[in-house]
Protein backbone atom coordinates (compact mmCIF):
# COMPACT_ATOMS: atom_id res chain seq x y z
CA UNK A 1 0.00 0.00 0.00
CA UNK A 2 1.16 3.51 -0.84
CA UNK A 3 -0.48 6.72 0.41
CA UNK A 4 0.29 9.87 -1.56
CA UNK A 5 -1.20 13.38 -1.62
CA UNK A 6 -3.33 13.91 -4.73
CA UNK A 7 -4.11 17.57 -3.93
CA UNK A 8 -4.12 19.90 -0.90
CA UNK A 9 -7.47 18.33 0.05
CA UNK A 10 -7.05 14.66 -0.85
CA UNK A 11 -4.98 11.51 -0.49
CA UNK A 12 -4.71 8.62 -2.94
CA UNK A 13 -4.44 5.21 -1.30
CA UNK A 14 -2.94 2.77 -3.82
CA UNK A 15 -3.17 -0.97 -3.20
CA UNK A 16 -1.48 -2.02 -6.43
CA UNK A 17 -1.23 -1.33 -10.14
CA UNK A 18 -3.19 -4.26 -11.57
CA UNK A 19 -6.84 -5.29 -11.68
CA UNK A 20 -7.12 -8.25 -9.28
CA UNK A 21 -9.87 -9.47 -6.94
CA UNK A 22 -7.62 -9.33 -3.82
CA UNK A 23 -6.75 -5.71 -4.55
CA UNK A 24 -10.39 -4.84 -5.17
CA UNK A 25 -11.27 -6.43 -1.81
CA UNK A 26 -8.86 -3.98 -0.16
CA UNK A 27 -10.27 -0.98 -2.05
CA UNK A 28 -13.88 -1.87 -1.24
CA UNK A 29 -12.96 -2.81 2.34
CA UNK A 30 -11.33 0.56 3.03
CA UNK A 31 -14.15 2.39 1.22
CA UNK A 32 -16.78 0.72 3.43
CA UNK A 33 -14.72 1.19 6.61
CA UNK A 34 -14.31 4.93 5.96
CA UNK A 35 -17.93 5.33 4.90
CA UNK A 36 -19.11 3.64 8.10
CA UNK A 37 -17.32 6.26 10.21
CA UNK A 38 -19.60 9.02 8.84
CA UNK A 39 -16.81 11.50 9.49
CA UNK A 40 -18.07 14.97 8.50
CA UNK A 41 -14.55 16.10 7.62
CA UNK A 42 -14.23 13.42 4.93
CA UNK A 43 -16.18 14.86 2.02
CA UNK A 44 -15.91 12.30 -0.75
CA UNK A 45 -14.60 8.81 -1.42
CA UNK A 46 -13.68 7.79 -4.98
CA UNK A 47 -12.94 4.06 -5.35
CA UNK A 48 -10.98 3.06 -8.49
CA UNK A 49 -9.72 -0.31 -9.79
CA UNK A 50 -6.80 -0.47 -7.35
CA UNK A 51 -7.00 2.72 -5.31
CA UNK A 52 -9.23 4.88 -3.16
CA UNK A 53 -9.15 8.68 -3.34
CA UNK A 54 -10.08 10.28 0.00
CA UNK A 55 -11.21 13.90 -0.27
CA UNK A 56 -11.38 15.88 2.99
CA UNK A 57 -11.65 19.35 4.48
CA UNK A 58 -8.03 20.46 4.93
CA UNK A 59 -9.06 23.18 7.40
CA UNK A 60 -10.40 20.50 9.76
CA UNK A 61 -7.98 17.58 9.33
CA UNK A 62 -4.51 17.11 7.89
CA UNK A 63 -3.06 14.70 5.34
CA UNK A 64 -1.22 13.09 8.23
CA UNK A 65 -4.46 12.57 10.23
CA UNK A 66 -6.11 10.88 7.26
CA UNK A 67 -3.05 8.75 6.44
CA UNK A 68 -2.85 7.57 10.07
CA UNK A 69 -6.55 6.70 10.03
CA UNK A 70 -6.21 4.77 6.76
CA UNK A 71 -3.18 2.85 8.05
CA UNK A 72 -4.96 1.86 11.25
CA UNK A 73 -8.06 0.70 9.36
CA UNK A 74 -5.98 -1.34 6.93
CA UNK A 75 -3.98 -2.84 9.80
CA UNK A 76 -7.19 -3.87 11.57
CA UNK A 77 -8.34 -5.64 8.38
CA UNK A 78 -11.73 -5.61 6.73
CA UNK A 79 -14.67 -7.87 7.46
CA UNK A 80 -16.42 -9.44 4.49
CA UNK A 81 -19.41 -7.26 3.69
CA UNK A 82 -22.96 -8.31 2.94
CA UNK A 83 -22.41 -7.12 -0.63
CA UNK A 84 -20.32 -10.23 -1.24
CA UNK A 85 -23.33 -12.47 -1.18
CA UNK A 86 -25.66 -10.20 -3.12
CA UNK A 87 -26.05 -10.86 -6.87
CA UNK A 88 -28.06 -8.25 -8.77
CA UNK A 89 -29.83 -9.66 -11.83
CA UNK A 90 -29.83 -7.29 -14.78
CA UNK A 91 -32.06 -8.11 -17.75
CA UNK A 92 -30.42 -7.22 -21.08
CA UNK A 93 -31.84 -7.39 -24.59
CA UNK A 94 -29.03 -8.18 -27.05
CA UNK A 95 -31.07 -7.23 -30.17
CA UNK A 96 -29.12 -5.68 -33.05
CA UNK A 97 -30.92 -2.36 -32.61
CA UNK A 98 -29.74 -2.10 -28.99
CA UNK A 99 -26.35 -3.64 -29.66
CA UNK A 100 -25.09 -1.98 -32.85
CA UNK A 101 -21.52 -3.20 -32.19
CA UNK A 102 -22.38 -6.83 -31.39
CA UNK A 103 -21.44 -7.89 -34.95
CA UNK A 104 -18.07 -6.09 -34.65
CA UNK A 105 -17.37 -7.73 -31.30
CA UNK A 106 -18.20 -11.11 -32.87
CA UNK A 107 -15.81 -10.40 -35.77
CA UNK A 108 -13.03 -9.16 -33.46
CA UNK A 109 -13.33 -12.09 -31.06
CA UNK A 110 -13.93 -14.60 -33.92
CA UNK A 111 -17.00 -15.93 -32.16
CA UNK A 112 -20.58 -16.23 -33.41
CA UNK A 113 -22.75 -13.39 -32.08
CA UNK A 114 -24.89 -15.89 -30.11
CA UNK A 115 -21.73 -17.14 -28.39
CA UNK A 116 -20.74 -13.56 -27.45
CA UNK A 117 -24.17 -13.12 -25.87
CA UNK A 118 -24.01 -16.51 -24.12
CA UNK A 119 -20.59 -15.75 -22.64
CA UNK A 120 -21.46 -12.17 -21.68
CA UNK A 121 -24.69 -13.23 -19.97
CA UNK A 122 -23.10 -16.32 -18.45
CA UNK A 123 -20.51 -14.62 -16.25
CA UNK A 124 -20.83 -13.12 -12.79
CA UNK A 125 -19.38 -9.64 -12.59
CA UNK A 126 -18.29 -7.44 -9.78
CA UNK A 127 -18.98 -3.71 -9.58
CA UNK A 128 -15.42 -2.42 -9.19
CA UNK A 129 -16.54 1.18 -8.81
CA UNK A 130 -18.92 3.80 -10.16
CA UNK A 131 -17.40 6.72 -12.02
CA UNK A 132 -17.21 8.74 -15.22
CA UNK A 133 -20.81 9.92 -14.84
CA UNK A 134 -23.59 9.57 -12.25
CA UNK A 135 -24.35 5.86 -11.81
CA UNK A 136 -21.93 4.42 -14.41
CA UNK A 137 -20.79 1.03 -13.08
CA UNK A 138 -17.44 -0.43 -14.13
CA UNK A 139 -17.83 -4.21 -14.06
CA UNK A 140 -14.88 -6.57 -13.71
CA UNK A 141 -14.82 -10.26 -14.52
CA UNK A 142 -15.67 -10.38 -18.23
CA UNK A 143 -14.42 -13.56 -19.92
CA UNK A 144 -11.09 -12.83 -21.59
CA UNK A 145 -12.23 -14.01 -25.04
CA UNK A 146 -14.68 -11.07 -25.13
CA UNK A 147 -12.04 -8.37 -24.67
CA UNK A 148 -12.50 -5.85 -27.50
CA UNK A 149 -10.98 -2.38 -27.84
CA UNK A 150 -13.21 0.67 -27.62
CA UNK A 151 -14.38 2.57 -30.72
CA UNK A 152 -11.79 4.73 -32.48
CA UNK A 153 -14.30 7.59 -32.51
CA UNK A 154 -16.77 7.83 -29.62
CA UNK A 155 -20.47 8.21 -30.38
CA UNK A 156 -21.96 11.61 -29.67
CA UNK A 157 -24.93 10.05 -27.89
CA UNK A 158 -25.30 6.61 -26.32
CA UNK A 159 -28.82 5.71 -25.14
CA UNK A 160 -29.47 5.22 -21.42
CA UNK A 161 -29.29 1.53 -20.42
CA UNK A 162 -26.82 0.62 -23.18
CA UNK A 163 -24.44 -2.21 -22.26
CA UNK A 164 -20.93 -1.79 -23.63
CA UNK A 165 -17.47 -3.37 -23.77
CA UNK A 166 -14.16 -1.49 -23.61
CA UNK A 167 -11.04 -3.65 -23.46
CA UNK A 168 -11.57 -6.04 -20.54
CA UNK A 169 -14.31 -3.94 -18.97
CA UNK A 170 -18.04 -4.03 -19.40
CA UNK A 171 -20.53 -1.47 -18.13
CA UNK A 172 -23.95 0.13 -18.48
CA UNK A 173 -24.62 3.74 -19.50
CA UNK A 174 -27.07 5.09 -16.87
CA UNK A 175 -28.06 8.21 -18.82
CA UNK A 176 -27.66 9.37 -22.39
CA UNK A 177 -24.08 10.59 -22.80
CA UNK A 178 -21.34 10.54 -25.42
CA UNK A 179 -19.38 7.29 -25.24
CA UNK A 180 -16.77 5.13 -26.91
CA UNK A 181 -17.62 1.67 -25.60
CA UNK A 182 -18.78 -1.06 -28.03
CA UNK A 183 -22.51 -1.48 -27.51
CA UNK A 184 -23.87 -5.02 -27.43
CA UNK A 185 -27.28 -4.66 -25.74
CA UNK A 186 -29.54 -2.60 -23.53
CA UNK A 187 -31.23 -3.04 -20.15
CA UNK A 188 -34.80 -1.82 -19.64
CA UNK A 189 -33.97 -1.02 -16.00
CA UNK A 190 -33.45 2.54 -14.85
CA UNK A 191 -29.86 2.61 -13.57
CA UNK A 192 -29.92 6.08 -12.01
CA UNK A 193 -32.68 8.04 -10.29
CA UNK A 194 -31.48 11.20 -8.55
CA UNK A 195 -34.71 11.46 -6.52
CA UNK A 196 -34.57 7.92 -5.12
CA UNK A 197 -33.38 7.13 -1.60
CA UNK A 198 -30.74 4.92 -3.26
CA UNK A 199 -29.95 6.81 -6.51
CA UNK A 200 -28.04 4.01 -8.25
CA UNK A 201 -29.20 0.45 -8.89
CA UNK A 202 -25.79 -1.01 -8.05
CA UNK A 203 -22.95 0.02 -5.74
CA UNK A 204 -19.25 -0.69 -5.58
CA UNK A 205 -18.71 -4.25 -4.35
CA UNK A 206 -22.05 -5.63 -5.63
CA UNK A 207 -22.07 -8.64 -7.90
CA UNK A 208 -24.05 -8.56 -11.15
CA UNK A 209 -25.39 -11.16 -13.57
CA UNK A 210 -26.91 -10.34 -16.95
CA UNK A 211 -30.08 -12.13 -17.95
CA UNK A 212 -30.65 -12.27 -21.74
CA UNK A 213 -34.22 -11.23 -22.57
CA UNK A 214 -36.06 -10.89 -25.86
CA UNK A 215 -37.54 -7.75 -27.35
CA UNK A 216 -41.07 -8.40 -26.03
CA UNK A 217 -39.75 -8.84 -22.49
CA UNK A 218 -37.63 -5.68 -22.86
CA UNK A 219 -40.69 -3.66 -23.82
CA UNK A 220 -42.75 -5.17 -21.02
CA UNK A 221 -40.04 -4.38 -18.44
CA UNK A 222 -39.44 -0.92 -19.87
CA UNK A 223 -43.08 0.11 -19.51
CA UNK A 224 -43.37 -1.50 -16.08
Amino acid at each position, binding site marked *: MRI*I*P*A*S*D*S*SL*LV*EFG*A*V*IAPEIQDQVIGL*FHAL*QAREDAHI*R*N*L*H*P*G*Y*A*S*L*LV*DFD*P*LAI*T*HKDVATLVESLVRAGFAKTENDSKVVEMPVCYDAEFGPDLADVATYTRLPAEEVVRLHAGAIYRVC*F*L*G*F*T*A*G*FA*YLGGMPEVLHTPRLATPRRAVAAGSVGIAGGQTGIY*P*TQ*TPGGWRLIGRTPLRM*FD*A*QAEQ*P*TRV*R*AGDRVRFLAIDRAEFERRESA
Partner: protein
Amino acid sequence: MTISVVKPGLFTTVQDLGRYGYAHLGISPAGAADALSLRIANLLVDNDENAPVLEMTLLGTTLAFEDPVIVALTGASCECKLGPDTVPANQAVAIAAGSVLQCGSTTNGARCYLAVQGGFDVPLVMGSASTDVRGSFGGFEGRRLQKGDVLRIGKARKAEPRRLQASTNEGLRWTGPVRVTRGAQCDWFSPDGYAKFLGTSYLVSEQSDRAGLRLQGEAVSPRDKRQLLTDGIPLGAIQVPQDGQPIILFVDQQTTGGYPKIASVIAADMHRIGQLWPRDEVRFTQVSIAEAVEALRAQERWLKGIFAG
Protein backbone atom coordinates in the same frame (compact mmCIF):
# COMPACT_ATOMS: atom_id res chain seq x y z
CA MET B 1 -42.31 35.63 -3.81
CA THR B 2 -41.18 34.97 -7.37
CA ILE B 3 -38.81 36.21 -10.05
CA SER B 4 -39.40 35.42 -13.72
CA VAL B 5 -36.78 34.91 -16.37
CA VAL B 6 -37.21 37.37 -19.25
CA LYS B 7 -33.92 36.43 -20.97
CA PRO B 8 -31.91 33.48 -19.68
CA GLY B 9 -28.44 34.70 -20.73
CA LEU B 10 -25.85 32.34 -22.16
CA PHE B 11 -25.72 29.70 -19.44
CA THR B 12 -27.39 30.46 -16.12
CA THR B 13 -27.87 27.85 -13.40
CA VAL B 14 -28.83 27.67 -9.73
CA GLN B 15 -25.79 26.71 -7.62
CA ASP B 16 -24.76 26.46 -3.98
CA LEU B 17 -21.46 25.24 -2.50
CA GLY B 18 -21.88 21.82 -4.10
CA ARG B 19 -22.97 18.25 -3.55
CA TYR B 20 -20.51 16.26 -1.48
CA GLY B 21 -20.61 12.66 -0.31
CA TYR B 22 -21.73 11.01 -3.56
CA ALA B 23 -18.51 10.71 -5.58
CA HIS B 24 -18.61 6.92 -5.06
CA LEU B 25 -21.83 6.92 -7.13
CA GLY B 26 -20.12 8.86 -9.92
CA ILE B 27 -21.67 12.16 -8.86
CA SER B 28 -19.50 15.27 -9.19
CA PRO B 29 -19.73 18.12 -6.67
CA ALA B 30 -21.13 20.70 -9.14
CA GLY B 31 -21.67 23.93 -7.16
CA ALA B 32 -20.51 27.47 -7.91
CA ALA B 33 -17.48 27.67 -10.19
CA ASP B 34 -16.34 30.65 -8.12
CA ALA B 35 -17.42 29.64 -4.62
CA LEU B 36 -15.76 32.67 -3.05
CA SER B 37 -18.00 35.06 -5.02
CA LEU B 38 -21.05 32.96 -4.11
CA ARG B 39 -20.18 33.25 -0.42
CA ILE B 40 -19.61 37.02 -0.61
CA ALA B 41 -22.95 37.48 -2.44
CA ASN B 42 -24.80 35.51 0.24
CA LEU B 43 -23.04 37.28 3.12
CA LEU B 44 -23.90 40.69 1.63
CA VAL B 45 -27.64 39.91 1.78
CA ASP B 46 -27.20 38.11 5.12
CA ASN B 47 -28.07 34.62 3.82
CA ASP B 48 -26.36 31.43 4.89
CA GLU B 49 -23.10 31.19 2.91
CA ASN B 50 -24.44 28.09 1.17
CA ALA B 51 -27.78 29.58 0.02
CA PRO B 52 -28.67 28.89 -3.65
CA VAL B 53 -27.77 31.75 -6.03
CA LEU B 54 -27.79 32.26 -9.80
CA GLU B 55 -24.52 31.67 -11.61
CA MET B 56 -24.42 33.58 -14.92
CA THR B 57 -21.83 32.85 -17.58
CA LEU B 58 -20.39 35.49 -19.96
CA LEU B 59 -23.80 36.96 -20.80
CA GLY B 60 -26.14 37.70 -17.89
CA THR B 61 -29.84 37.18 -17.29
CA THR B 62 -32.77 39.59 -17.49
CA LEU B 63 -35.13 39.08 -14.56
CA ALA B 64 -38.55 40.53 -13.69
CA PHE B 65 -39.17 40.95 -9.94
CA GLU B 66 -42.79 40.53 -8.82
CA ASP B 67 -41.98 41.45 -5.22
CA PRO B 68 -39.56 43.79 -3.45
CA VAL B 69 -36.34 41.98 -2.62
CA ILE B 70 -32.72 42.66 -1.68
CA VAL B 71 -30.06 41.33 -4.04
CA ALA B 72 -26.27 41.36 -4.39
CA LEU B 73 -24.14 40.88 -7.50
CA THR B 74 -20.59 39.55 -7.19
CA GLY B 75 -17.92 37.83 -9.27
CA ALA B 76 -16.91 39.11 -12.68
CA SER B 77 -17.94 42.69 -13.45
CA CYS B 78 -20.95 42.97 -15.70
CA GLU B 79 -23.03 45.95 -16.68
CA CYS B 80 -26.29 45.57 -14.74
CA LYS B 81 -29.20 47.95 -15.20
CA LEU B 82 -32.42 48.62 -13.31
CA GLY B 83 -34.21 50.71 -15.90
CA PRO B 84 -31.78 53.57 -16.63
CA ASP B 85 -29.78 53.07 -13.43
CA THR B 86 -26.57 51.08 -13.15
CA VAL B 87 -26.67 48.54 -10.32
CA PRO B 88 -23.46 48.57 -8.27
CA ALA B 89 -21.71 45.26 -7.67
CA ASN B 90 -20.47 43.91 -4.33
CA GLN B 91 -23.17 45.53 -2.23
CA ALA B 92 -26.75 44.83 -1.19
CA VAL B 93 -29.28 46.56 -3.44
CA ALA B 94 -33.01 46.93 -2.78
CA ILE B 95 -35.16 46.08 -5.80
CA ALA B 96 -38.73 47.43 -5.96
CA ALA B 97 -41.67 45.27 -6.98
CA GLY B 98 -42.26 45.32 -10.72
CA SER B 99 -38.61 46.10 -11.59
CA VAL B 100 -36.65 44.50 -14.41
CA LEU B 101 -32.96 43.78 -13.78
CA GLN B 102 -30.83 43.45 -16.91
CA CYS B 103 -27.41 41.84 -16.54
CA GLY B 104 -25.09 42.36 -19.50
CA SER B 105 -21.82 40.79 -20.58
CA THR B 106 -19.05 40.08 -18.10
CA THR B 107 -15.87 42.04 -18.66
CA ASN B 108 -13.09 40.77 -16.40
CA GLY B 109 -14.02 37.15 -15.84
CA ALA B 110 -16.39 34.40 -16.90
CA ARG B 111 -19.02 34.33 -14.16
CA CYS B 112 -21.21 36.67 -12.20
CA TYR B 113 -23.36 35.72 -9.19
CA LEU B 114 -26.75 37.02 -8.10
CA ALA B 115 -27.91 36.32 -4.55
CA VAL B 116 -31.39 37.25 -3.30
CA GLN B 117 -32.20 37.65 0.35
CA GLY B 118 -33.90 34.39 1.34
CA GLY B 119 -32.11 32.44 -1.41
CA PHE B 120 -33.62 30.78 -4.48
CA ASP B 121 -36.03 28.12 -3.32
CA VAL B 122 -35.39 24.87 -5.19
CA PRO B 123 -35.70 21.31 -3.87
CA LEU B 124 -32.51 19.83 -2.44
CA VAL B 125 -31.30 16.73 -4.29
CA MET B 126 -28.80 14.65 -2.33
CA GLY B 127 -28.42 17.53 0.09
CA SER B 128 -27.65 20.25 -2.44
CA ALA B 129 -29.41 22.87 -4.58
CA SER B 130 -26.67 22.77 -7.21
CA THR B 131 -27.57 21.99 -10.81
CA ASP B 132 -25.99 18.82 -12.22
CA VAL B 133 -26.42 19.59 -15.91
CA ARG B 134 -25.04 16.30 -17.23
CA GLY B 135 -27.15 14.19 -14.86
CA SER B 136 -30.16 16.54 -15.33
CA PHE B 137 -30.95 16.91 -11.63
CA GLY B 138 -30.72 19.51 -8.89
CA GLY B 139 -31.05 23.28 -9.25
CA PHE B 140 -34.03 24.49 -11.26
CA GLU B 141 -35.45 21.34 -12.90
CA GLY B 142 -31.96 19.95 -13.45
CA ARG B 143 -31.11 22.36 -16.24
CA ARG B 144 -29.97 25.86 -17.19
CA LEU B 145 -32.60 28.58 -17.03
CA GLN B 146 -34.90 29.27 -19.97
CA LYS B 147 -37.12 32.18 -20.90
CA GLY B 148 -40.35 32.09 -18.92
CA ASP B 149 -39.02 30.13 -15.93
CA VAL B 150 -40.46 31.33 -12.64
CA LEU B 151 -38.07 31.09 -9.68
CA ARG B 152 -39.32 31.10 -6.12
CA ILE B 153 -37.53 32.98 -3.38
CA GLY B 154 -37.14 31.49 0.08
CA LYS B 155 -38.30 33.20 3.23
CA ALA B 156 -35.75 35.79 4.35
CA ARG B 157 -34.90 35.87 8.01
CA LYS B 158 -35.06 39.26 9.72
CA ALA B 159 -31.68 40.28 8.52
CA GLU B 160 -29.46 43.27 8.00
CA PRO B 161 -27.66 43.54 4.67
CA ARG B 162 -23.93 44.03 5.14
CA ARG B 163 -21.38 46.22 3.40
CA LEU B 164 -17.85 45.55 2.26
CA GLN B 165 -15.12 47.78 3.57
CA ALA B 166 -14.32 50.52 1.09
CA SER B 167 -10.88 49.15 0.28
CA THR B 168 -12.12 45.63 -0.54
CA ASN B 169 -13.01 46.11 -4.21
CA GLU B 170 -9.34 46.35 -5.16
CA GLY B 171 -8.60 43.20 -3.20
CA LEU B 172 -11.17 41.29 -5.27
CA ARG B 173 -8.78 41.05 -8.24
CA TRP B 174 -6.42 38.14 -8.18
CA THR B 175 -3.38 38.00 -10.43
CA GLY B 176 -0.22 35.97 -10.77
CA PRO B 177 0.22 32.29 -11.57
CA VAL B 178 -2.35 29.77 -10.33
CA ARG B 179 -0.86 27.79 -7.45
CA VAL B 180 -0.71 23.99 -7.73
CA THR B 181 0.58 21.06 -5.72
CA ARG B 182 2.17 17.97 -7.29
CA GLY B 183 -0.35 15.58 -8.83
CA ALA B 184 -0.77 11.91 -7.94
CA GLN B 185 1.12 10.87 -11.12
CA CYS B 186 3.57 13.77 -11.20
CA ASP B 187 6.46 11.28 -11.30
CA TRP B 188 5.13 9.89 -14.60
CA PHE B 189 6.53 13.06 -16.15
CA SER B 190 10.25 13.78 -16.59
CA PRO B 191 11.70 16.63 -14.48
CA ASP B 192 12.09 18.54 -17.76
CA GLY B 193 8.48 17.85 -18.70
CA TYR B 194 7.26 19.05 -15.32
CA ALA B 195 9.46 22.16 -15.55
CA LYS B 196 8.02 22.81 -19.01
CA PHE B 197 4.49 22.55 -17.55
CA LEU B 198 5.36 25.13 -14.88
CA GLY B 199 7.15 27.36 -17.40
CA THR B 200 4.42 27.50 -20.02
CA SER B 201 1.79 30.16 -20.46
CA TYR B 202 -1.30 28.21 -21.53
CA LEU B 203 -4.31 29.47 -23.43
CA VAL B 204 -7.79 28.41 -22.24
CA SER B 205 -9.46 26.70 -25.22
CA GLU B 206 -13.00 27.30 -26.50
CA GLN B 207 -13.72 23.65 -25.65
CA SER B 208 -13.94 24.48 -21.94
CA ASP B 209 -16.86 24.27 -19.56
CA ARG B 210 -17.64 23.56 -15.91
CA ALA B 211 -16.49 19.95 -16.31
CA GLY B 212 -13.04 20.81 -17.58
CA LEU B 213 -10.86 23.60 -18.92
CA ARG B 214 -8.79 22.49 -21.88
CA LEU B 215 -5.46 24.27 -22.16
CA GLN B 216 -3.37 24.89 -25.27
CA GLY B 217 0.38 25.36 -25.21
CA GLU B 218 3.61 23.35 -24.93
CA ALA B 219 2.80 19.63 -24.97
CA VAL B 220 3.94 17.82 -21.80
CA SER B 221 3.57 14.12 -22.58
CA PRO B 222 4.36 11.71 -19.75
CA ARG B 223 7.66 9.81 -20.18
CA ASP B 224 5.94 6.84 -18.62
CA LYS B 225 3.89 5.19 -21.37
CA ARG B 226 2.04 2.81 -19.03
CA GLN B 227 -1.72 2.78 -19.18
CA LEU B 228 -3.04 4.25 -15.92
CA LEU B 229 -5.68 2.17 -14.15
CA THR B 230 -8.74 4.37 -13.79
CA ASP B 231 -8.59 6.13 -10.42
CA GLY B 232 -10.31 8.93 -8.50
CA ILE B 233 -9.91 12.55 -9.58
CA PRO B 234 -9.77 15.33 -6.98
CA LEU B 235 -11.39 18.68 -7.78
CA GLY B 236 -8.93 20.87 -9.67
CA ALA B 237 -6.69 18.01 -10.80
CA ILE B 238 -4.79 18.69 -14.03
CA GLN B 239 -4.73 15.61 -16.24
CA VAL B 240 -2.66 15.17 -19.36
CA PRO B 241 -4.03 12.99 -22.20
CA GLN B 242 -1.79 11.53 -24.92
CA ASP B 243 -1.71 14.77 -26.92
CA GLY B 244 0.12 16.46 -24.01
CA GLN B 245 -2.40 19.32 -23.67
CA PRO B 246 -3.42 19.64 -20.00
CA ILE B 247 -7.05 19.69 -18.83
CA ILE B 248 -8.11 21.21 -15.48
CA LEU B 249 -10.93 19.03 -14.16
CA PHE B 250 -13.46 21.27 -12.56
CA VAL B 251 -16.74 21.32 -10.59
CA ASP B 252 -18.79 19.20 -13.06
CA GLN B 253 -15.83 16.84 -13.48
CA GLN B 254 -15.94 13.11 -14.04
CA THR B 255 -15.23 11.47 -10.67
CA THR B 256 -12.71 8.95 -12.07
CA GLY B 257 -10.40 8.91 -15.05
CA GLY B 258 -7.55 7.14 -16.75
CA TYR B 259 -5.08 9.91 -17.64
CA PRO B 260 -2.07 10.78 -15.46
CA LYS B 261 -2.52 13.85 -13.28
CA ILE B 262 0.48 16.15 -13.26
CA ALA B 263 -0.71 18.69 -10.67
CA SER B 264 -3.71 19.93 -8.68
CA VAL B 265 -4.97 23.49 -8.30
CA ILE B 266 -4.92 24.49 -4.62
CA ALA B 267 -8.28 25.03 -2.90
CA ALA B 268 -7.54 28.73 -2.28
CA ASP B 269 -7.15 29.35 -6.04
CA MET B 270 -10.12 27.26 -7.23
CA HIS B 271 -12.36 30.35 -7.49
CA ARG B 272 -9.93 31.85 -9.99
CA ILE B 273 -10.37 28.85 -12.30
CA GLY B 274 -14.10 29.60 -12.26
CA GLN B 275 -13.39 33.05 -13.69
CA LEU B 276 -11.21 31.89 -16.61
CA TRP B 277 -12.74 32.08 -20.06
CA PRO B 278 -11.65 31.04 -23.55
CA ARG B 279 -8.43 32.72 -24.74
CA ASP B 280 -7.40 33.74 -21.20
CA GLU B 281 -3.78 32.98 -20.40
CA VAL B 282 -2.93 30.87 -17.39
CA ARG B 283 0.40 29.93 -15.80
CA PHE B 284 1.09 27.66 -12.87
CA THR B 285 3.47 27.76 -9.93
CA GLN B 286 4.12 24.94 -7.47
CA VAL B 287 3.62 25.31 -3.72
CA SER B 288 3.84 22.76 -0.91
CA ILE B 289 0.75 21.23 0.69
CA ALA B 290 1.51 23.22 3.86
CA GLU B 291 1.66 26.46 1.88
CA ALA B 292 -1.59 25.55 0.10
CA VAL B 293 -3.44 24.92 3.37
CA GLU B 294 -2.01 28.13 4.87
CA ALA B 295 -3.25 30.05 1.78
CA LEU B 296 -6.72 28.61 2.38
CA ARG B 297 -6.63 29.67 6.05
CA ALA B 298 -5.50 33.16 5.02
CA GLN B 299 -8.38 33.36 2.53
CA GLU B 300 -10.88 32.44 5.26
CA ARG B 301 -9.45 35.15 7.53
CA TRP B 302 -9.61 37.63 4.63
CA LEU B 303 -13.27 36.76 3.95
CA LYS B 304 -14.19 37.37 7.60
CA GLY B 305 -12.36 40.69 7.56
CA ILE B 306 -13.80 42.35 4.46
CA PHE B 307 -17.19 43.25 5.89
CA ALA B 308 -17.65 46.66 7.49
CA GLY B 309 -19.14 47.09 10.94
